[in-house]
């Protein structure tokens, strides 16, 4: 069973006052990917900040291009990765160990991936 983990954070709650602590945390994130290599089907990607986001959205006269992320939520998606594990409990167990979760405002959304397309036939 494949699940996408979407890593989100709240920039308004982030504390960037301690660069050393941030460095240590990044090291642990790197290690996390190593430790969980066996269940990571796709490393995914880390994304640049929302200030770099561009959105193409539906418009009455055809697609419209606008600056910024697609929603006004306080949470921003910072990256994603794909797990391949037996079930939801395993997905949760792996996700709980995500090092960034010790930062306020950080959340990880777990979404099962569609793998069986026969349901759409």
């Amino acid at each position, binding site marked *: 069973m494949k*699940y996408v983990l979407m890593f989100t954070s709240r920039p308004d709650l982030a504390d960037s006052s301690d660069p050393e602590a941030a460095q240590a945390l990044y090291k642990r994130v790197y290690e996390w990917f190593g430790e969980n290599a066996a269940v990571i089907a796709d490393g995914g990607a880390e994304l640049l900040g929302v200030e770099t986001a561009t959105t193409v959205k539906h418009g009455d006269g055809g697609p419209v291009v606008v600056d910024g992320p697609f929603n006004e939520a306080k949470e921003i998606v910072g990256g994603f990765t794909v797990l391949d594990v*037996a079930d939801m409990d395993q997905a*949760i167990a792996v996700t709980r160990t995500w090092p960034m979760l010790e930062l306020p405002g950080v959340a990880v959304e777990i979404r*099962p991936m569609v793998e069986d397309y*026969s349901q759409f036939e």
Partner: protein
Amino acid sequence: MTPAPTDGLLAQVLREEAGPLVARLSRRFGDFDLAEEAVQSAVVEALTAWRRSGAPDNPAAWLQVAAQRNALDGVRRSSRQRALAARAAVPAEASDGTDDRLALLFACCHPALAPEARLALTLRAVVGLTTPQIARAFLVNESTLAQRIVRAKRKVTDAAISLAVPPADQLAERLADVLAVVYVMFNEGFVSSSGATQDRDLAADAVWLAGVVATAVPDEPEAWGLAALLTIQHARAAARFDPHGGLVLLRHQDRSLWDHAAIAEGERMLERAYRSHRTGRFQLQGAIAALHATAPSWEQTDWLQIALLYDELARHDPSPVVRLNQAVAHAQVGDPVDALRRLEGLGADLSGYHLFHAVRAELLTTLGRHDEAREANRTALGLTSNDAERRLLTTRLHRHPLQDGS
């Protein structure tokens, strides 16, 4: 609908059989949604058929045959499930009903499901209630409830929430979610048990389920604590209502009507819980209930110990209703000034709760502040008599049955 005389028996058979059957069929067909639906339909068929012509000689087998037939029908109807049916050839793992039921219960109370869906799903899949029965018990719209259940079941299947007992390192945390659902189930039943129209006794079902859980995870003290609490509270059921259906307060209850054998059973469960030396809110509430249940009278109750237990409970669960009970207990050990001060601090949270004002009125009376007491009584009365629905809602929102309440 008037319950048929055999409904109590039917309920017992259904709650014994439904859960393990859902778990077995889920494993066999690899589809929880399909299995749950098949058993639910079989339960509905059973209620109709058994009310008409009595329960069959082997109700478990009857239910299994009906559920299996429904599941196979479901498979034939759906092309998506046809693929899954290929797995049906795999023989089901041998396991006893208790483990199956426990695994199913952990899935239904999974933290990935919406809290309001966990109880509904548990009642249907684990305890064998029908959707209309659940809707009646909670006074909620049947189609809203049905939707909630459908959404939760789809998530169990689509997100691969497995029917499994969590590993040891997660057991205590996941168990807390399960116990919370069983506790709410009991309180829903306890609050509404004046209504003779219920054809299932939710409180009795919850006592049974708490016992099932504690027996299945015998080293978990909070599971025994909850089983003890519910067993002891339920033992007082016969004395809680007068012949006209009016609620009788604990202090006025006829203690000879209490089920003393059940109370003793609850005390044994508590002793079992204490062996692990890991205390928790259900053990503390159970201990308080046991002190009330074994006291010869309201006056001769060990209020000092109850007050101390509430102090400890408030550390585990500092909710306003626990602190209200704490104040009541402290007032009984002779410090009404201190009790009133504790109470005033809760006004912001509990000003819409009639018992807050009733307790306050009593304390003010004790202190000779009669004008204020009258005012508080009037407020309490206004909150109770004007708005019965609000009263019910308040009681439901604050899940702790007041020691002075019933």
